[in-house]
């Protein structure tokens, strides 16, 4: 073994002992959750890309249902008022 080789091995050993930086914990959890959602969609046979938009889709769906319910109730109240002669 030459001195150079020895130095090289020593250098690689020092590099292997370097402490690594830590990723952000909260973001790591968000990434894990997102990947879990994609895997869950995969089990249900839906395309994985829909996972990113699923929370938005659920919010839009809830808003539409609420709006339709409001329209229906408004119509029902008006119909009731007509029937009562007011």
């Amino acid at each position, binding site marked *: 073994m030459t001195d150079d080789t020895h130095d090289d091995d020593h250098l690689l050993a020092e*590099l292997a002992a370097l*402490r*690594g*930086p830590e*990723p*952000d914990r909260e973001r790591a959890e968000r*990434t894990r959750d997102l990947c879990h959602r*994609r895997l*869950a969609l*995969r089990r249900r046979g839906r395309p994985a890309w829909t996972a990113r938009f699923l929370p938005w889709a659920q919010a839009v769906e809830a808003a539409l249902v609420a709006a339709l319910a409001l329209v229906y109730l408004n119509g029902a109240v008006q119909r009731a008022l007509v029937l009562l002669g007011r």
Partner: protein
Amino acid sequence: MDSETERRLVGRLKGGDESAFDLVYEAYRRPLFAFLYRLTRNRDAAEDALEETWLRLVGRIDTLRDETQLGSWLFAVARNLAFDFLRARAFDGETVGNTDLAGSLADTRPSPYDTAAAHELDRRLERGLLALPPSLREVLLLVGVRGMLPSDAAVVCNVRADALRQRLHRARDMLARWLEEQDRAG
């Protein structure tokens, strides 16, 4: 993680198994982040590339063959994303090469990692790595820091094994010279 374990995990991931994902995630998220951060020297870029690497894993799991080495695949994806970032930065007018990298890409905010890296030897090595061009630095990060076999690192870097060994030799020489110069100067 041995290759047989990885093979089984790939099969379980294809079935959408979240616990299999967690095993892979815990095994690789820290080394992948360390690799990305040292390659890009930008915490936000490293975090973005890390997230994209995992999303690509779950999004492209069907394209993985049974014999795919998961670790090499993940590092290859991360490496390509890091170089996309470096190229974009270079395109934006910032220098990506040799010691200029230290000034142009270094995240100036002191991160918890920077604060924690108090050990003088660690600091010298980190600065030495930063002084290398990315194409040499990545080889030392994979073989030296990560402990990857040169043949596996060649797969990650998409070069032939003999070319990888040449790069490794050059990278070690350059880092050793840089450290000697620092010793003389200091």
